[in-house]
Each structure stands twice: as structure tokens, then as C-alpha cells.
């Protein structure tokens, strides 16, 4: 069949067009299928996350239950003999110092709130601000301190994590409430003195209130303390 060059040219072009269109349709369908895979993965992960959260909530409840039982045993043990009474008293005193029991007493409550119109990074509360306040409180003799309900113990970290602050592994956002038990007047002047941490923060429009209270209640430390490296030192004579 004698074909003219034009016919061949048109034929080749038609071949290329048909090929390209079919391949394109195939590719678009394939990439659409791929993307729906990804959204399926996301929903699977979300389900797993929900299940894990529920599990950890249940475990937390169990821990609280065990702590209550332990408390009952302690009470019973304290009644049985003089030795155990003395031990129970010692235990109670150590718990108080360690921060694993609820305490109350006179003190102050400080609230810190990010500037209403936070223009830049300086207008919000940072971990270092909380740190310097706690430093002053301790120097002024604070015996128990908590941030937004999280008890500050000697292993507590206070760290900026993105837009929030992590205390004892729990995330807290503005407003921050710092409760401290100690001599209320001393504590108040310790944080309010000119050049102190609160004055600096007031310059940056952070909203601060300081209240002296006759009775401040501070909760116990709710986490687990497990020393893996430090052991009681052996006494050398």
C-alpha cells in the first residue's frame, strides 16, 4: 500500500498522541490510588494512637488505686508497734521533703499570663522565666512549689517544647500558676524586688498577679521516681 509522507506523518503523530494520553490517564489513576493509601495509613495511625491513650489512662487509674492501697497498709503498719510507729513517722517526714505527698501551709500564688498581643518571642513566658522565679522562691525558703498543679521535685525539668512548657513530662501552656508554701511575706518580696524576674517580665507586658494566702494546698508529685544510676553510698571509715 503506497502511503504518502503526509499520511505517515499523521499516523506517527496519532500514535504518539494515543500513547501519551493513555499513559497519562494510567499515571494519574495510579498516583490517586497511592494517595488514598496514605490517607488510610493516617487514619490507621490515629486509631492506634487513640487505643494507646486509652491504655495509658487505664494504667494511670490502676496506679492511683495501688497508691491508695499502699496508703492503707502504711496506716495499719503504723499502728502495730513502736518501731513501726517511728518508721512511719520517718517515712511521712521523708515523703514531705521529697514532694510525694500533698502539703498545705501559708504561702503565695503567682499567675503569669502571656501578653495579650504577643508581638514576638519576648512577650511570652519562657522556661527560663519560670526557672528564675523558682530560684528566688527557693532562696527565700519555699518548702513546696508547684507549676499548674505539677509538683516541682528535685528531678523536675522545666523546658520549652515548641509553644508550651513541659514540667514533669506534662505540657502546660499560659496562663501559669505557681504555688509556693513558705513565709508569705518573704516569698512575696523575694520575687517582687526591683530588678527581679517578675519586674523583667512586666516590662514585656506579661500579665502577673501575686497573692499572699494563708493556706496554699500543693498536690503530690504524680510521676515515678526510679534511680537507675545513683545508689546509696557505702560509708568508708
Amino acid at each position, binding site marked *: *500500500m503506497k*502511503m*504518502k*509522507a*503526509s*499520511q*505517515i*506523518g*499523521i*499516523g*506517527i*503523530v*496519532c*500514535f*504518539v*498522541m*494515543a*500513547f*501519551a*494520553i*493513555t*499513559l*497519562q490517564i*494510567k*499515571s*494519574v489513576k*495510579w*498516583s490517586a490510588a*497511592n494517595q488514598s493509601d496514605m490517607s488510610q495509613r493516617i487514619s490507621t495511625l490515629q486509631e492506634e494512637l487513640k487505643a494507646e491513650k486509652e491504655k495509658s489512662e487505664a494504667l494511670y487509674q490502676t496506679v492511683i488505686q495501688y497508691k491508695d492501697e499502699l496508703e492503707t497498709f502504711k496506716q495499719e503498719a503504723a499502728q502495730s508497734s513502736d518501731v513501726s510507729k517511728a518508721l512511719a513517722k520517718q517515712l511521712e517526714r521523708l515523703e514531705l521533703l521529697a514532694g510525694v505527698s500533698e502539703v498545705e501551709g501559708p504561702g503565695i500564688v503567682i499567675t503569669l499570663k502571656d501578653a495579650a498581643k504577643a508581638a514576638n518571642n519576648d512577650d511570652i513566658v519562657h522556661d527560663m522565666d519560670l526557672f528564675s522565679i523558682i530560684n528566688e522562691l527557693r532562696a527565700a525558703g519555699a518548702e513546696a512549689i508547684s507549676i499548674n498543679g505539677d509538683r516541682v521535685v528535685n528531678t523536675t525539668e522545666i523546658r520549652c517544647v515548641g509553644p508550651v512548657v513541659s514540667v514533669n513530662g506534662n505540657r502546660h501552656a499560659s496562663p501559669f500558676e505557681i504555688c509556693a508554701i513558705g513565709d508569705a511575706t518573704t516569698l512575696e518580696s523575694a520575687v517582687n524586688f526591683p530588678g527581679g524576674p517578675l519586674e523583667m517580665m512586666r516590662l514585656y507586658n506579661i500579665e502577673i498577679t501575686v497573692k499572699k494566702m494563708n493556706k496554699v494546698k500543693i498536690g503530690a508529685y504524680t510521676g515515678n521516681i526510679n534511680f537507675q544510676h545513683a545508689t546509696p553510698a557505702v560509708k568508708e571509715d
Partner: protein
Amino acid sequence: MLFVILSLVLGVLLALLLPGYIPPTYTPYVAIAILAGLDSVFGGASAVINNQFQLKVFLSGFIGNVVLAALLTYIGNLLDVDIYLAFVIVFGTRILQNFTIIRRYLLNRHYSFHPLQKPKEEGDSPS
């Protein structure tokens, strides 16, 4: 005529059987290139009807349009300007115009006036 249909079918079959895919990053460029190719094909058909078809013009137009459309779309991507829109509108318009011409010819050729003269026998004019 038969050759054209054959090449169409062959193109479709080959693309279906081939295991590869166009990478998703390139699909927008291939899409606009397909539009450019379609415009060229319709333009070619319209030229055949008007007996003005020249293979050189057709082939150069096809390749040139495809390359130009893809290239300008890519540049538009870099510049964050939707240049491809121009091609979509222009090619779409030309396809519809040429389609009108084709349609008129196909509808009218069973009536008295036959505008398509016998095409030249010896292939197309050289150079």
C-alpha cells in the same frame, strides 16, 4: 485512513501494556503537552479539509507546540505564575474552532458542494 486508525489503536495498546508510569511530578507538564498535541492534530485535520496541509508545518507545529507548552509551564512553575492557563485557553479555543470546521465538512460532504479536491499524488511539495 487505515494506517491512522491502526496507529491510534497501537498507541493505546502499547501504553496499556507498558509497566511504567509517568512520575507524578511530571503529570502537569504531560497534560499541557497533550493539549498542545491535540490542538496540532485538529489543526492538521482542518488543514487537510482546506487542502492546505503541509507535512513540514504539521510536524514542526506539533513538536514546537508541545515543547513550548511544557517549557513555559515549567518556567511558570518556577516563577509562581500560572502561565499554563494561557495555553489552556488558546489551545481550547483553537480546538473548538477547528472542530467546527471539521464538523461542517463532515456534515456537508454528502450534499452537493464538495470543497475537498483531490489531494496531490506525489507526496507534498519538497522544501
